[in-house]
């Protein structure tokens, strides 16, 4: 066959594609493939309108909807919204040559950096295949002795009190006679973790606040300040004080049930944060109290904290500023010496220690840090709880663990390992639509969650989102009750630190030692 024939076997079509059909970026292989079933496509352009990454476009000349797969982030918004199910997004079958050491991800990241010279950014939580230890722990249940309890028939207590507990109490005439440190009563051991307005949209933060209100639990503002409209949720609010001190003033501190000092975050231990100027909209600017369009920079350390003694100084500054009315929490990322650090935090006077594991989410973090720095929360939690018990100071704090809590069973395991309660963040965002595409930092979230673009943000209706969050937490609460009942326990208090309810599968003896549990079968 002659070459000319080969090149142009359809005389009605020109041999060469138009320039607009070509990839607009670089020599990277697309991460995703977009498949469009042209028999099903009705050219309604829903996909074009739904995609903020400019994947889909109408080619007027060919009168076809086409796509630029190299732009696709794999959020699946178009596929879900397509009325004729004509689109499917799959991992790009065209991959670099397989290599045991150099994964496609490594090759792509190198190309990204060769093109830009920058730090590879990502969002959401660590997606690497490090072992998830929750999946290697199994929960006990009663058989014959200590009969199991049916939570549908009998009372089952999930109520949790957040705050320091005294070593002893005095009771007089059947009433508590000791003065108690400030306590917050929540209806289940599940709190919404810190996600700032700025990282997420107004509607999503509103939904989370309203869900906390309806559920009788707490949500956390993150370090982005408190929007004036959200002061009305103060009975369910934790306000955060981080290195940027955005929107931190006496009204803010006193609008909360708890103040949390953010030292670190599981997704990016040891570094600060930069909310890109693009995401500092007028409303975010009002909340953070910084000018519109400027980078909101949270330095890596808090510049008034270089030691445990300095931390104590800030803890008590916050107690003074709130007239000792509310507990003060200190949140740290799970790192190698978490147990010793937590001990210092307790001795510094914190009422709550929050530990965030290395699977915790983020609006933006360097990928190198998200995927490589920190510890699995399971180990950090077990080590911290054990250390505080050994030192006889465990009662002085409430221990909240977060960073990779995916389901009710994870919560039961966390509490058996020693947590008083858990923070959920990523799970909450998934409940309102997040598909973990990890492009939170771009501000272009097609699901209307991690964006300040009004066109995208209105995709989340705060009432529907609130209902979904309430449903999720209620569902989990019911599951926790079922599992407690199965163990013959009728109160979450009785599960706390009860590691005998857990057994390990496929764990080394060292891992079992750190977790403080026995292997399955023993």
């Amino acid at each position, binding site marked *: 066959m002659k070459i000319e024939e080969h090149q142009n076997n359809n005389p009605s079509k020109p041999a060469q594609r138009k320039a607009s059909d070509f990839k607009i970026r670089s020599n990277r292989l697309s991460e995703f493939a977009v498949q469009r079933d042209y028999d099903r496509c009705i050219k309604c352009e829903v996909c074009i309108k739904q995609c903020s990454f400019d994947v889909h476009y109408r080619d007027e000349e060919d009168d076809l909807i086409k796509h630029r797969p190299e732009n696709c982030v794999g959020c699946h918004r178009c596929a879900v919204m397509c009325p004729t199910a004509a689109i499917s997004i799959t991992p790009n079958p065209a991959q670099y040559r397989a290599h045991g050491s150099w994964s496609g991800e490594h090759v792509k990241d190198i190309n*990204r*950096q060769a*093109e*830009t*010279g*920058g*730090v*590879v*950014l990502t969002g959401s939580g660590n997606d690497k295949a490090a072992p998830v230890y929750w999946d290697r722990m199994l929960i006990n249940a009663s058989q014959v002795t200590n009969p199991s309890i049916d939570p549908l028939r009998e009372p089952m207590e999930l109520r949790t009190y957040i705050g320091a507990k005294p070593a002893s109490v005095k009771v007089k005439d059947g009433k508590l006679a000791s003065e108690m440190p400030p306590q917050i009563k929540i209806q289940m051991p599940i709190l919404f973790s810190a996600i700032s307005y700025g990282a997420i949209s107004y509607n999503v933060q509103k939904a989370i606040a309203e869900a906390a209100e309806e559920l009788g639990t707490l949500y956390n503002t993150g370090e982005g300040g408190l929007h004036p409209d959200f002061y009305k949720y103060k009975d369910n609010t934790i306000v955060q004080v981080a*290195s*940027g*001190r955005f929107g*931190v*003033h*006496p*009204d803010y*501190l*006193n609008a909360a049930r708890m103040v949390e000092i953010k030292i670190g975050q599981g997704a990016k231990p040891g570094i600060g944060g*930069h909310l*890109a*100027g693009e995401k500092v909209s007028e409303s975010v*600017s009002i909340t953070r*109290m*910084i*000018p519109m*369009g*400027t*980078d909101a*920079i949270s*330095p890596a350390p808090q*510049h*008034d904290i270089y030691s445990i003694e300095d931390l104590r*100084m800030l803890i*008590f*500054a916050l107690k*003074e*500023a*709130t*007239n000792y009315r509310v507990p003060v929490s200190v949140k740290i990322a799970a790192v190698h010496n978490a147990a010793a650090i937590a001990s210092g935090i307790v001795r510094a006077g914190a009422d709550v220690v929050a530990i965030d594991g290395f699977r915790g989410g983020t609006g933006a973090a360097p990928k190198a840090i998200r995927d490589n720095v920190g510890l699995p929360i399971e180990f950090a939690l077990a080590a911290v709880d054990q250390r505080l018990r050994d030192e006889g100071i465990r009662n002085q704090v409430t221990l909240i663990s977060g960073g990779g809590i995916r389901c009710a069973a994870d919560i039961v395991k966390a509490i058996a390992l020693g947590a008083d309660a858990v923070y959920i963040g990523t799970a909450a965002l998934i409940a309102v639509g997040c598909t973990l595409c990890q492009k939170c*930092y*771009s501000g272009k979230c097609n699901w209307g969650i991690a964006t300040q673009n009004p066109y995208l943000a209105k995709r989340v209706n705060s009432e529907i989102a609130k209902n979904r969050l309430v449903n999720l937490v209620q569902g989990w609460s019911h599951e926790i009750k079922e599992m407690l009942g199965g163990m013959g326990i009728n109160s979450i208090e009785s599960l706390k630190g009860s590691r005998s309810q857990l057994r390990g599968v496929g764990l080394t003896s060292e891992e079992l030692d750190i977790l403080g549990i026995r292997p399955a079968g023993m």
Partner: protein
Amino acid sequence: MSIATSIEIDAAGLYYKELNAQIRDAVSEGALKVVLKNVTGQRYIGTNLYGTVDRDTLRKLEIEIHGTPGNDLGMFLDGPTITVHGNVMDGSGNTMNHGRIVAHGRAGDITGFSARGGEMFIKGNAGYRVGIHMKEYGDMRPVMTIGGATQDFLGEYMAGGVVIILGLTLKPGEAHYCNHVGTGMHGGMIFLRGNIEPHQIGTGVGMPELTDKDAELLTNYIAEYGRLFDTDVSEIKLEDFTKLAPLSVRPYKQVYAY
């Protein structure tokens, strides 16, 4: 109101919690001036006044301190004027929102850290990381005037506000000794009187000319400094000032690979 509008508290031997509770009670009961005698390192003076009286009354409140207040003087301060007849330690004006702190002496580290509003006047020298991460928002703009010189990291991460360094404690011909000035600065202004070499200044910081508005601001604050500390400021000339301002409000835009 039964209580005198001015009240004196002897701080000798009082733990900070007790002293601050007494100040809070006095303000709640209507005191407009609180004089503290024998202050010896008590922390957080002026921090706990939220909810005592209304905002306007808090802005009229004067706290006069004799002795040496401890760290975090006026932390989260939101209205009152604090005058210290002595030195102040670390963290004065930390995350201050509104009000005024006047110290007839020296100041420690992180003076004015993260302040969003209000005014600070320090008669003498100040320590490390002064004015670090100061901000501004809308009509809130903190202004800190320091009579002497400071140590390193002056105005680091500064996102707004004004820092004025008069350099009055430097000997004739002596240059400023602070390094890494304005590192990571992305807002606000530093006015520094006296010699400073480019290598002492962080990257991303420019040295623009003084504008007419700058001159007016400097003149007013220099005059106020002279009045507050009863100091002759006639020899302070505007042409001796170097202005430091960020080159970008987005210093980290180029750091990332998108």
